[in-house]
Structures are given as structure tokens and as C-alpha cells.
């Protein structure tokens, strides 16, 4: 064949054209683009021998066991610990991504002071401490110095209490009762000092007034075990305005009108008493039994049906289901965003338990964990709740503690307790929520960076205690709260010493057993506290059986129930705002960046400014889907975008109280339901 110039050019042109129809040139272009764009962006993976360390999650009170997968000393993944008595090998999404928290972009690099324009400037610890000491010394009589500790019962909590106990007008504050609100009401109805916990596994049925039973409530593994056991699984009635995940998965969902929990609880009691399904002896025994019976008889299912906006037959059916499945339990407290229903409603819910056979079976006494005598000797401030035990405008210096509860702590609630010329100090490692309001921030070590402890869930009757060992080295400018307290003049000690002291007390007590990943042993088998320390810092957790015999409530609390304020719409605020959140996401901590998967990248959870309303509510307010609006409440409000959704109750706004959300607090210090209105932003 003669390959002339014309033929050769034709062949070349044909080959070039044909190549365009193969992947080769496109791959070359694509790879060139990738190499040229990514060469400086190739992530550096950790190196080192793979190993495993064990610890405990301290992001919320549940105290789940964590198994940290490490490359050398670097943690690169967290999973649950199989067989762990608290978490049964599982973690929540926060826990799964929590190994990112020490590197969070919102983390404070060191102590800072907030300027008038809102900027933070670095401040030396010594200078901040000197300023605060001077403020403490020069405050006026009657002005309190307070520490707000969201996670009471820890070793550091006792140090906070001793610090405030040593001051004139020192206050040790804890947040509102949260998911333990029903138990707090029962305590108020009992002999002084009685404390209770739930043994949810003993219940055959539960009526929940907004508590997220199937979505992270209490110790989630306990609830899941009861719900999904093969024999007599826990049956759940969810009374809640919003169709929460628990409402979706419950056996019965009662979509009640906002703030009608009291009416429903009394109507259920009405049916139980009317049908002779409630033990008469219990009613007789209570000091206000006759008044309670009289009050309950006024709340027939028909009467409650009008208040709750559900059929009377549904109330009758729910009451019968509970009576047929005793012991049953009534649980209030709400979710992490909405919080408790108010003191009156929580008392009505708590009283229902006395008719359902829950007392002494599902609700039993709660252990007090032992502490060294030196911790509980004077000076020691008593524990006070910030919502109910502190006069408004009385705190001149507020120190916000180091560890979050995972529940919302509405800023207006704190703000109303502050004196006009106040100083706020935050010990949070992150520039989130309340820390943004602080004048000074002394950042504590982040999650996994120091010894911490988990004194167990506030609502579970099953006692537990665990120590979290540091798995990551803390940055040099992080200041442990004990170091900060020492600068303010309190006694100096190390957290490790304190935990060792507490462990010695536990060893002396000699009760309970220790779970470690290697197995479970009675505490008596540990020859000394040193051996116990090794086990506890290797992922161990102490557990014990609950106190079955406990003080019983002496009254139903008719006075509190009757004084519950009505929360109805008014002419100027005709809509009800319902904030909600999942545990850990409305509190004062930061969220791991990977939570973008559930907020931003999937919208599995709505972000804080997205407000869901029924089409009728949107039409009445003159707004359309996607409209930018401002939700106005009494002197409060925040901006958001409307999402019109026919699955929302007419007349309400469902507002995710996610990170940084503002919450409106009512006169009775509740914020589950707030009268509001929608104003369109033009």
C-alpha cells in the first residue's frame, strides 16, 4: 500500500476523530484537572499502629461506653462498646462524630475577653482572675456570685459548691429539671429529700407527654430494650402536638392541642377512678386525696376532649390501655428543646403514676453516689435551680460551668436573674450559645482531653458511675476549671486526685459490680482502689441495683395542678410557638462538623431558622412557603423562613431549637409553648 501524504493525513485525522469517541482523551483531561487542582489538597491521613482505647462519653448524662479506634495516639473513630451495661454497644450521632470536637473550628484557642464590639481578644488567665477577684470583693451586699453547673453530681460539681459555699451570697445553680421534671414533681410531693428514678424496663406501658422516649430519652438502650423485647414489649402512648419521631413510632399518637397536658392527665385519671381501675387505697392515703378526686371528676373525657382537641373515645381508649398493661408509667419533661410542660402540668403527670401502679415498680428510689466526707463538709452551697430558686436580678457574677447537659438553656431565663451590672464568665471550650454572651471565656479542655466522669443519667434508677480517661492531649492554653477555681482562691487539687478519692469511697462501699470490656466482676473482687482505678480508666463502669424501697409521695399536689397557668392564644399573639430539639443539640456544646450530614446535606433535621406551619396558618398570617419572617413574642423574637407543611397542626409554629436558637421563656419559666405571631419581612 502506498502511504502518500494525503492518505497519511486522512489516517491521522480519522485516528484523532476516533480517539475523541474513546474515554482516553477525556480521562487525560479529567486527570490533569484533578492533579493540577488537588495536589496541595491531598488530605494527610494519620499514621501509626492501629490500637483501641476505651472510655466513656461525657457529652450528655447517659454515660455511654466508647471504643476509640486509634492510629498511634490519634483517635480516628468512635464506636460503642459491645455489652456495655449503659449503652449496649451503641452511640448517638453526636457520640459517633465526637472525636472531631477537639478540632472544632469554633473552639477557643485560649482565655479571651469580649470587647464592646463583640470581638474576642486574648486575655491572660492571671489578669482575668485578678479582675474577677476584685469584682467579687467589691460587690454590693445582696449581689450573688453564682456557678451554673449543667451536670451536677460530679467531683468538679462539689468543688463549685465549695467555692460558692465559701463566699457570702454564693450560689450553686443547676438548670431546670428537663427530662427529670416528672421525678422532680414527685420529689416535691414526697418527704423532704426523696429522689426517684425510672426503671423503664419494668413498665408494660407508658404514656409520654412529649418526652422523646424512642429518640434519645434517659438511657436510650434501656428504653430500646424494653420496647423491642420479644415478651410483652413496652407499649407507648405519645401525647404531643408535634408528630415527633416518638409520635411516629408509638403505638398510639394523641395529637393534643399545645399546653393541654394537664387536662389529658386529669382525664386519664378520671377514667381510671371512674372505672375502678385505680387503687382506692392510694387515693385514701394521700393528704389531698379527696381534693384530687374532686378535681379529677371535673375532667371527664368529654371535657378534656374540648381542651385537648382529640376525641373523648381516644382518651378512654388510652386510659384503658394503660390500665390493662400495669405497671404503666406517665412521663413528662419534654424534649431537649421544648423542656418541661410547667410545674402544674408536671405535677398532674406525676400524680398519674400513683394510679398506674408505677410507684415502687417502675419509679423507685435513686442512689446517692458516695463522696468523701471532706467534700460534703462545710462550706458547701446547697443545690438551687436557676428557674425556681433564685430571685430575678440578683446575680452580679455568673460562672457558666464546663460541661453541657445537652438540653436547651434559654438565654432569657438566665438573663432575668442577672443584676444590671453583671459579669459573665464561661468555661466552655466552644464559642457557642451562652459562651457568646460571656464577658470572659476561660476555655476548659474539650471532650476526651482530660479526666472526666459520668455520674449516670438523671432519670434512670439504675445507678452508674464511670471515669473517662484523656484520649487526646489538651492544648497548652486550655484551663481546667479546677485551675480556674484555684486562681479565684478555692483550694487547689487535680481532677485525677479527686476522682481517685471518689473511687476509694466506692471501693469502701463494696457494693455493685464493674463492667470492663474484658468482663464483669463484683467490686469486692478488686483488692484495692488502685486496681479498681486501672479497670475504671480502661473503659470500666460501676453499676448497682436500684433502691426499691423509697419514700412514697404523700400528696397529689392539687394546689400546684390547679394553679397551672392557661396558655391560650391572645389577640396579639394568636399562634403557639413549639420549639423542639434532640438531646445534645440545643444545649451549650458544639456539634461535630459531620452533623452537617443530618442538617445541611440531607435536611433530615431542619435547621434552626426553618419554621414549619400548616397552610391555613400561613394563609392567616399572609405568608407563603419560603417567606422570610420574624416570629414575634413578648419582647422577644427571631427571624426564620416559612416551610408550609400540611402535617403540622393548624395554629402552631414548629421551630427547631437547634444550635444558637433563641427561646422565649414564659412567666412560669417554661418555654415549651409560647404565644407568638408571624411578621413578614419585606
Amino acid at each position, binding site marked *: 500500500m502506498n502511504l502518500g501524504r494525503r492518505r497519511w493525513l486522512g489516517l491521522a485525522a480519522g485516528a484523532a476523530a476516533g480517539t475523541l469517541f474513546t474515554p482516553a482523551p*477525556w480521562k487525560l483531561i*479529567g486527570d490533569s484537572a*484533578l492533579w493540577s*487542582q*488537588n495536589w496541595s*489538597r491531598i*488530605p*494527610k*491521613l*494519620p*499514621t501509626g499502629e*492501629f490500637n483501641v482505647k476505651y472510655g466513656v462519653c461525657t457529652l450528655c448524662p447517659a454515660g455511654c461506653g466508647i471504643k476509640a479506634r486509634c492510629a498511634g495516639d*490519634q483517635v*480516628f*473513630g*468512635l*464506636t*460503642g462498646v459491645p455489652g456495655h451495661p449503659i449503652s449496649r454497644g*451503641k*452511640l*448517638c*450521632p453526636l457520640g*459517633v*462524630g465526637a*472525636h*472531631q470536637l477537639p*478540632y*472544632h*473550628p469554633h473552639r477557643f484557642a485560649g482565655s479571651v475577653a469580649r470587647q464592646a464590639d463583640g470581638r474576642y481578644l486574648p486575655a491572660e488567665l492571671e489578669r482575668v482572675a485578678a479582675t474577677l477577684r476584685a469584682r467579687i470583693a467589691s460587690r454590693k451586699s445582696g449581689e450573688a456570685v453564682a456557678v451554673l453547673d449543667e451536670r451536677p453530681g460530679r467531683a468538679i460539681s462539689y468543688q463549685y459548691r465549695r467555692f460558692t459555699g465559701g463566699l457570702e451570697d454564693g450560689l450553686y445553680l443547676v438548670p431546670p429539671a428537663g427530662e427529670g421534671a416528672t421525678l422532680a414533681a414527685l420529689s416535691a410531693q414526697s418527704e423532704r429529700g426523696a429522689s426517684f428514678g425510672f426503671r423503664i424496663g419494668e413498665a408494660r406501658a407508658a404514656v409520654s407527654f412529649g418526652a422523646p422516649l*424512642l*429518640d*434519645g430519652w434517659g438511657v*436510650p*438502650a434501656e428504653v*430500646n430494650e424494653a420496647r*423491642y423485647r420479644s415478651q410483652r414489649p413496652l407499649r407507648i402512648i405519645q401525647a404531643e402536638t408535634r*408528630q415527633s*419521631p416518638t409520635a*411516629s*413510632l408509638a403505638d398510639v*399518637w394523641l*395529637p393534643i392541642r399545645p399546653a393541654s397536658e394537664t387536662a389529658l392527665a386529669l382525664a386519664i385519671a378520671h377514667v381510671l377512678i371512674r372505672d375502678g381501675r385505680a387503687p382506692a387505697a392510694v387515693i385514701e392515703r394521700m393528704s389531698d386525696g379527696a381534693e384530687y378526686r374532686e378535681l379529677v371528676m371535673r375532667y371527664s373525657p368529654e371535657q378534656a376532649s374540648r381542651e385537648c382537641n382529640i376525641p373523648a373515645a381516644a382518651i378512654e381508649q388510652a386510659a384503658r390501655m394503660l390500665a390493662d398493661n400495669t405497671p404503666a408509667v406517665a412521663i413528662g419533661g419534654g424534649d431537649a428543646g421544648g423542656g418541661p410542660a410547667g410545674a402544674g402540668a408536671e405535677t398532674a403527670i406525676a400524680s398519674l403514676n400513683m394510679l398506674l401502679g408505677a410507684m415502687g415498680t417502675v419509679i423507685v428510689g435513686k442512689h446517692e453516689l458516695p463522696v468523701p466526707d471532706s467534700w460534703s463538709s462545710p462550706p458547701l452551697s446547697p443545690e438551687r435551680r436557676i428557674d425556681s430558686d433564685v430571685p430575678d436580678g440578683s446575680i452580679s457574677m455568673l460562672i457558666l460551668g464546663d460541661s453541657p447537659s445537652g438540653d436547651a438553656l434559654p438565654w432569657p431565663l438566665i438573663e432575668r436573674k442577672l443584676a444590671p451590672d453583671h459579669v459573665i464568665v464561661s468555661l466552655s471550650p466552644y464559642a457557642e450559645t451562652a459562651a457568646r454572651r460571656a464577658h470572659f471565656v476561660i476555655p476548659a479542655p474539650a471532650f476526651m482531653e482530660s479526666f472526666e466522669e459520668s455520674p449516670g443519667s438523671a432519670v434512670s434508677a439504675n445507678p452508674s458511675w464511670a471515669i473517662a480517661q484523656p484520649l487526646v492531649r489538651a492544648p497548652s492554653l486550655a484551663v481546667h476549671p479546677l485551675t480556674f477555681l484555684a486562681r479565684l482562691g478555692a483550694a487547689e487539687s487535680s481532677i485525677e486526685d479527686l476522682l481517685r478519692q471518689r473511687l476509694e469511697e466506692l471501693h469502701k462501699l463494696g457494693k455493685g459490680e464493674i463492667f470492663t470490656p474484658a468482663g464483669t466482676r463484683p467490686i469486692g473482687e478488686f483488692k484495692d482502689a488502685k486496681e479498681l482505678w486501672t479497670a475504671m480508666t480502661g473503659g470500666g463502669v460501676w453499676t448497682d441495683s436500684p433502691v426499691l424501697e423509697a419514700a412514697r409521695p404523700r400528696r397529689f399536689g392539687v394546689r400546684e395542678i390547679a394553679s397551672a397557668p392557661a396558655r391560650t392564644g391572645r389577640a396579639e399573639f394568636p399562634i403557639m410557638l413549639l420549639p423542639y430539639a*434532640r438531646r445534645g443539640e440545643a444545649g451549650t456544646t458544639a456539634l461535630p*462538623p*459531620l*452533623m*452537617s*450530614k*443530618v442538617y*445541611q*446535606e*440531607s*435536611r*433530615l*433535621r431542619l435547621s434552626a431558622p426553618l419554621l414549619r406551619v400548616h397552610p391555613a396558618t400561613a394563609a392567616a398570617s399572609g405568608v407563603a412557603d419560603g417567606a422570610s419572617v420574624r416570629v414575634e413574642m413578648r419582647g422577644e423574637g427571631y427571624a426564620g423562613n416559612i*416551610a408550609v407543611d*400540611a*402535617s403540622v*397542626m*393548624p395554629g402552631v409554629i414548629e421551630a427547631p431549637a437547634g444550635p444558637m436558637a433563641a427561646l422565649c421563656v414564659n412567666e412560669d419559666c417554661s418555654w415549651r409553648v409560647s404565644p407568638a405571631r408571624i411578621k413578614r419581612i419585606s
Partner: protein
Amino acid sequence: MSRYGMVIDIDRCNGCGACMVACAAENNVPPAHRDATERTGVTWMRVYRVENGAAYPANRARFLPVMCQQCGDTPCAAVCPQQAVERDPKTGIIDQVPQRCLGCRYCMAACPYHARYFNWWDPVWPAGMEKTLNPAVAPRMRGVVEKCNFCHARYQAARAEAAAAGKKAGKIGYTPACAEACPVEAISFGDLDDPDSAVAGGAASPDSFRLLERLNTQSKVYYRSREPWVRQMAGSRLVQIRKEKARV
């Protein structure tokens, strides 16, 4: 030879998202770029809130975790011009080879489950956070498609461990990150061809179903629900649900 598959109990899933976070942490999927949306973000596993369509108070909802359905008859592999979609004959797992991927996104168009994701941005973690990446999984670059591979790195690690222990090659037991993380144990994983496995039992149960079963993709992810509307929705309305969610 195994045929790994998954069974997800919709009546247990509470939509917490632990599976999504665990998946991202295990497989080095970066946090969202600031411009990422529900359509452009990368989530190998995505949980949808699905509803029965009724107005309040008759509305009912469930949560539907959707990842690569590991089809037996793979529409994505059939259209890939680069042979970047591979089926492991030992496990039946469909994997994506990012080094081969051209970024044409034909596979995304072909996937009826919308379970494939394109990297619109370079993978970037906040400063210092690269130290928390899983050393066993290579991050993918901008311009390629990625998807769930049943935590293939965990399978490889389990296989290496079995070999080191002197066990014969055969059935390798391992658990993907999502199944390990699920707090309500809604996700079970195992060999569908092993009649004694929990997944084989779950897949054969009368309340099990597969997404868009009429397309006959022979997917290896089964779902369970006693709610008829969930089963009906899974058979026909999946695409519509995704569009509705994208609108939100």
C-alpha cells in the same frame, strides 16, 4: 462465596442520623462545603423522612435510610464508560473506583435510587481535623462519583485478620459502620445466601420488601415494615419523595 446484604427495619428507625454520621466518619466523607445543599452534598447513606401524604392529624411518618442498594443487575455499571464500577465476585459488593472515574455522572443518571454522589468540591476538613480521618480509607478527589460500598475497607480488614489468624478463606464476618452505629438495631447485615443468618431470615419475612422492586434491579438491601403505605411508597413514590425533599 458470599452475597452480602442488608435488612432495615423501618418500624424501628427513629431518624436519628447516627448511621449517616458513622458512615461519613468511617469512609472519610468530608463535612459539607459551605455551598453544599441536599442535592450537592455527599452522604453515602441518607435518611429520608417519608409521610403517608395525609393532612394533620391523620398524617403518619417513617424514616427511610437509603444507600447504594447493591443491585444484582447494576444499571450504573452498565453505563460507566470507564469500568469504574466493579462487582467483587467474592462478596457481591458493588464498588466504585475513583481513580478510574471520569466524572461523567452517567451512573448517577442511571441509578434509580439516587444513591450516588458527585464531589463538587475538594474534600476539606476544618484545620487540624484531618488527623481524625480513617487511615484505612482514601479520601476521594473533586470531580469523581462515590457511593456506599458496604464499608469494603472493613471487609478487607476482616479478611486480612482472618488470614493472619490462619483461617481458611471463606465466609468473612464483618459489620458496616451504619449497622454498628444504629442505636435501635434497625439495620442488620450479613450473607443473604446463608440460611442461618439474620439477614436471610429478615429478607424472607412476609413484611420485607425492596425499593422500586418493579425495576428488577435485584438489590441486596431489603426493608421491613408492617405499614402498607410504607410498602406502597417504597414501590412507586421514591423519586417523588426525593423531589419533595429537595424542594424543602
